[in-house]
């Protein structure tokens, strides 16, 4: 028995030595030397997941390595992000698809064990999805001005897809900037929130563009404004919120952004390789068609710029969350 155990442990040891040796020979090559893990901090099926799987497919070809998608949902993306921040063995081959939950989560979840800016490197902002300020078709308000004036007189309700979603926070930001009376009405996801808006139970919503685009086109919803910096090519006649310039709305620019981040110790060589591969992915026709169908625009920032964007977002949402009383 003893002999057997000895032999077994010897075999295991020599096996792992051999593996270590083979790894070190591979390591002489360029990054990636192993499978790349793409962590999705949400459950399968959402926008983040669908986008990640599409990107993983294309990235696989560009990197010439396996890209494995792994879902780790929990606490508005902070579970997976916290795990990434703690680091670990395969941290130089792990990337994470971050989204507004990254910055909003930092504002509304107390005692996060990580710094949303300093603990990560920011690779590439892939796509931005604008939000649209929509009202029911039979709403008496035809412009942002009319709506704000009315909201100063009476209380308005806005629907959102859950505490801390970009839809929720856009509504809170609007309320803060315009100093109006608005009540947030939470729903479990946009699918459940939409009927309340279509049926006129709530007055307004700041929904993601892809969710409401078809309803705007069919005339069931009226779009008053888009929240992005520039007008959207999907809705060229709809002004941006900051266009009016009144009611402090010139500061109102938010989009649901999606981008890849990694642990702060992610090697420089890997960052360069990823940046190059992601540039190539974003040039691909498949990617551009996919973004187009989501109603999204290609991301603008990468690297240090991306990091600065995140830092300013964290600060902004912290302020909004404080004013709305959402943070503890």
């Amino acid at each position, binding site marked *: 028995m003893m002999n057997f155990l000895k032999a077994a442990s010897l075999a295991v040891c020599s096996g792992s030595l051999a593996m270590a040796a083979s790894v070190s020979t591979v390591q002489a090559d360029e990054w990636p030397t192993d499978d790349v893990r793409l962590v999705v901090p949400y459950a*399968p*099926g959402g926008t983040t997941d669908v986008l990640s799987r599409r990107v993983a497919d294309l990235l696989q070809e560009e990197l010439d390595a396996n890209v494995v998608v792994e879902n780790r949902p*929990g606490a508005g993306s902070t579970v997976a992000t916290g795990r990434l921040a703690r680091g670990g063995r395969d941290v130089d081959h792990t990337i994470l698809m971050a989204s507004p939950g990254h910055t909003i989560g930092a504002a509304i979840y107390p005692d996060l064990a990580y710094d949303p800016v300093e603990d990560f490197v920011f690779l590439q902002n892939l796509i931005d999805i604008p939000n649209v300020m929509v009202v029911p078709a039979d709403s008496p308000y035809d412009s942002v001005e009319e709506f704000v004036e009315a909201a100063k007189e009476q209380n308005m309700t806005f629907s959102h897809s859950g505490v801390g979603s970009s839809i929720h926070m856009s509504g809170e930001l609007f309320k803060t900037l315009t100093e109006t009376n608005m*009540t947030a009405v939470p729903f479990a996801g946009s699918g*459940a929130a939409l009927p309340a808006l279509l049926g006129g*139970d709530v007055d307004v919503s700041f929904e993601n563009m892809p969710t409401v685009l078809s309803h705007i086109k069919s005339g069931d919803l009226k779009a008053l404004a888009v929240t992005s910096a520039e007008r959207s090519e999907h809705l060229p006649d709809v002004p941006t919120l900051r266009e009016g310039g009144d009611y402090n709305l010139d500061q109102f620019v938010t989009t649901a952004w999606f981008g890849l981040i990694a642990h702060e110790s992610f090697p420089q060589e890997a960052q360069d390789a990823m940046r190059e591969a992601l540039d190539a992915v974003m040039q691909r026709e498949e990617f551009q068609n*996919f973004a187009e*169908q989501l109603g999204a625009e290609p991301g603008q920032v990468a690297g240090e710029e991306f990091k600065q964007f995140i830092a300013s977002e964290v600060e902004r949402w912290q302020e909004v969350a404080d004013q709305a009383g959402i943070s503890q």
Partner: protein
Amino acid sequence: MEIISEVLQLFLHPENFLAIALGVVIGVVVGSIPGLTATMAVALALPFTFSMEPIAAILLLVGIYKGGMYGGSITAILIRTPGSPASACTLLDGYPMAQQGHAKKALKMALYSSVIADFISNIALIFFAAYLAKIALNFGAPEFFWLICFSLTIIISLASGSMIKGLLAALLGILLSLVGLDEVFGSQRLTFGNYNLMDSISFIPLLIGLFAIPEIVEFYRKKALPHIKAKASGASVTLSEMKRSLKTIVRGSLIGVIIGAIPGTGATAAAFISYSDARRRSPRRDNFGKGEVEGVAASEAGNNGVAGATMIPLLSLGIPGDVITAIILGAFMVHGLTPGPLLFQENLPLIYALFMGIMFSSLVLLVVGNGAIKYFSLIADIPKEILFPIVLMFCVYGAYAVNNDTFDVWLMLGFGVLGYVFNRAAIPAAPFLIGFILGPMFEDNLRRSLLIGGNDLSIFVRGPIAWFFIALTLGSILLALYRYVTARRLPTQTDTSQEAP
């Protein structure tokens, strides 16, 4: 005439049939494995559909959805481990049936009622989509609130035996459902600072722990459990049983259709509402929970009735009612199609071809399900001392697989202890689950109504749908009181409290 040939041209394509068959098979297998849900399978299959023809792509995903909805019942019946949350209710009568040697009967009944419900749901989708979508839009938070109130009164009928124990279980379920982030203020409730609990207690580990673990503990505690001859070759569903259950199946299907047409409710709630409704109406209500074939029929009809109906808000309004239809919406959009009223105007042949495929999938479900029963039911013949360690492994794996997190494994084991206590103390599990599922819906819709109405209570009586459910709620309470009073006059007939659950 032209449109018919166009539709047939679109539909009669080998790729479509292959997609449906493959989808249903994947769905049944994935659905039957605890921890792997149809949602995951649909999400994982989505990238493969990008390169397919639109109809085949959607049919593949719909096939997985339907197969998964049924597949969960197989393991629920055979090893007391629900493969998916929606089949938790099937277990209540399905597993006792298997223990009594009627595994095959339970599996067949689950399949037949699933297929019938699926078929009815498809008919509703094809012929009444526009009408049902309109109802769904008028179903706001206050209406929902009353629907949930009505469903909660049903707990009275489920608390078989001791009413105190039933209410205790229901309240415990509601208490545990409070764990997580507050929906309105985002504050943490009962999380004790543990970030794993912020998204509330995961349902699948809870189910696995509550049902599968006590069974395993009980087996090893008693060791010499009389070896149950649960033969796979046992009797199938008899004609008289089918006849008896048919009304229940149709009613359950309609409940499923209505619940499915309203975005954001889900198959699990539908199964429990259908089950409770069936129990209240059935002359054999005392046998529910002890291996009543009608109970299996009711719960499976309820959850499968949802599958076709969730396509109603998706196709007619462009609103996904649950995560799976949200993914299917994604598949439509990848192919440049936007579900909604416009799709009916611009792409009618495609819609009709899709409908034909969806109808066909019911038939495929029947065939695949029959095949699955043939092989899966052999599990019933495996000696327990070999089977249970494997089940335990699946329990751990299933709990882990939901979020890829070991915390859920501990959670599952914790609920195992709770389930064991429930067993020993003869506390019924059904009210606990109903409390856990419906409690949050009750709270959310109450608060939502108050937010929408600006704290004006008149919103709760704002229209005919609300009035209808208020009447049902009051009627349900009055009926229970009436039964209670008449039962007290005939004390001998109600002495069921001595029986084990």
